């Protein structure tokens, strides 16, 4: 088959191309470019998945050199599952974003003290989003530790730019904190790569896995520790979560959705990939620690979500909690693959549900002009579709059947019981109850009757529908779980 038709390189090239064009052509054409590009990307990702199910994992040697001289791209089940999530979640988000930015520029745009110019947030949204998606796709496909460092930096800079979009003081503070944490984390990761290159003379994951073997020298343990710590900080796993609520809670709604649904999953994916392949000897030593940190994240994040009165903060803290579930899989990883399936299912269903939640909250904020729970009174009558979307996304986060979240938690419980590690059950179920509590808090508030004086801004229907579609997808995912699990079996 000709390389022209290989979807693997195009999944990286295409977003790079439309991001660059969106920058050159300006914001008005950016939205259309993004939608067209993402539609093709989604097609490519589905095509790659079906192709891979038939013929097995794909390697694409960049420049035709092949590792270790060149860089290889690898599309296996895990990578393609993440690619699918990225394109599926991003396409509705760009449709939403187009409506969001035109609506928020016509609505009374919030002005702050000393604003030097009237910001048009969508100016840079499209190119930044394009580079963000290119970074994600490149990261999922890369099989080279140093190249992964470059993709991580690309992802960081795109994400930080998106957080700062609009330039409100709180956003700039959050972006700066996020940037500094990410840079320190990338530095730690790079140090690990340096030690690994020094020890083995290569950064190709395929070559490193047999070289590291089961008894690596101390330098590799330290390298692995540094890389893991850096990636956990980027994933915002408890206790590194402190940067996440201001960054995700302060950004524009489509940005928060992209960040919570996709960006934090990228570094989780790397932790998983590294512990499954080159750093497998470390997995046993750190799996319990990761599981415990995950448990702490679930409890602390849910508690904070319950305590806050700000809508977006609530959803952001919920991300901290839901990320915890991803790390519960590490003590349960076993050859039966249940825990791995649970992890990917959780990543995908949380990605869709959280994108739905942030988009729905964006609709509510635009309608009420406020970011507080108290401002929600009466919303259910005015925006029933959005409240329904919020409820459906809540169903996924709580883990009720038939949602993807249910399937994820079911697989996790199955894995825990199979290995006799029943204490994790308490965390899984307790976390679900806390999630139910904060989701119902929002729903209850929205069904209260509004004070007479309340005035609701009209909101574009396309925003409501995209939020609903994302939420519905997160629930229906549970019914298509078998396909995803089959996909993961391709290694």
């Amino acid at each position, binding site marked *: 088959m000709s390389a022209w038709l290989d979807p693997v390189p195009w999944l990286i090239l295409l977003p790079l191309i439309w991001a660059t064009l969106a920058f050159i052509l300006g914001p008005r054409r950016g939205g259309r470019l993004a939608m067209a590009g993402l539609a093709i990307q989604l097609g490519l990702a589905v095509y790659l998945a079906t192709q891979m199910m038939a013929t097995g994992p794909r390697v694409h040697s960049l420049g035709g050199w092949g590792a270790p001289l060149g860089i290889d791209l690898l599309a296996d089940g895990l990578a393609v599952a993440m690619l699918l999530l990225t394109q599926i979640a991003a396409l509705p988000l760009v449709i939403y974003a187009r409506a969001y930015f035109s609506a928020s520029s016509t609505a009374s745009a919030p002005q702050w003290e000393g604003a030097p110019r009237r910001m048009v947030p969508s100016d840079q949204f499209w190119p930044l989003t394009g580079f963000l998606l290119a970074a994600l796709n490149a990261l999922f496909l890369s099989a080279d530790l140093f190249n992964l460092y470059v993709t991580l930096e690309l992802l960081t800079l795109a994400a930080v730019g998106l957080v700062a979009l609009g330039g409100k003081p709180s956003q700039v*503070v959050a972006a700066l*904190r996020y940037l*500094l944490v990410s840079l320190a984390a990338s530095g730690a990761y790079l140090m690990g790569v340096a030690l690994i290159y020094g020890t083995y003379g290569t950064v190709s994951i395929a070559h490193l896995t047999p070289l590291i073997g089961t008894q690596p020298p101390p330098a590799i343990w330290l390298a692995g520790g540094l890389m893991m710590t850096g990636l956990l900080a980027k994933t915002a796993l408890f206790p590194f979560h*402190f940067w996440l609520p201001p960054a995700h809670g302060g950004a524009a709604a489509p940005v928060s959705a992209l960040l919570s649904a996709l960006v934090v999953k990228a570094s989780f994916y790397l932790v998983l990939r590294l512990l499954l392949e080159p750093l497998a000897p470390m997995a046993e030593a750190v799996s319990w620690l990761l599981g415990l940190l995950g448990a702490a994240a679930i409890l602390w994040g849910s508690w904070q979500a319950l305590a806050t009165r700000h809508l977006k903060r609530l959803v952001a803290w919920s991300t901290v909690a839901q990320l915890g579930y991803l790390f519960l899989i590490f003590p349960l990883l076993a050859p039966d693959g249940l825990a791995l399936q649970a992890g990917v299912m959780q990543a995908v269903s949380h990605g869709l549900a959280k994108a739905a939640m942030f988009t729905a909250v964006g609709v509510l904020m635009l309608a009420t002009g406020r970011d507080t729970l108290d401002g929600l009174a009466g919303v259910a009558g005015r925006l029933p579709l959005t409240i329904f979307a919020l409820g459906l996304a809540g169903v996924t986060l709580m883990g009720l059947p038939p949602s993807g979240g249910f399937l994820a938690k079911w697989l996790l419980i199955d894995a825990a019981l199979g290995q006799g590690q029943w204490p994790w059950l308490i965390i899984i179920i307790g976390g679900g109850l806390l999630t139910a509590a904060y989701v119902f808090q929002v729903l209850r508030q929205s069904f209260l009757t509004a004070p007479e004086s309340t005035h609701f801004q009209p909101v574009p229907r396309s925003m409501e529908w995209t939020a609903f579609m994302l939420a519905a997808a997160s629930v229906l995912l549970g019914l298509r779980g078998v396909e995803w699990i089959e996909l993961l079996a391709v290694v």
Partner: protein
Amino acid sequence: MPDLPILDLTLAAALLFTGWRTLAAPDLFKAVVLFIVFGLFMALAWARLEAPDIALAEAAIGAGLTGALLLDALGHLRARRHGRSLQDPQP
């Protein structure tokens, strides 16, 4: 270790010293100047490591451009805040 040239040891010590002083300096202007000196020492270190490409890049980009960016930002902060440095809001 008789095979270690004095030059390399001196350079290593200079790097560590300027690096440490950069971060320890309470005055930001001093810190930035020390950082530029640090960058120039880095360029020398790259030359000693037989990496002339990096030496060139470090001198031009690492020390030169970053230094200029830092001085520019500092001038901006001074103008706006009368020398009061910006602090991380949370410890």
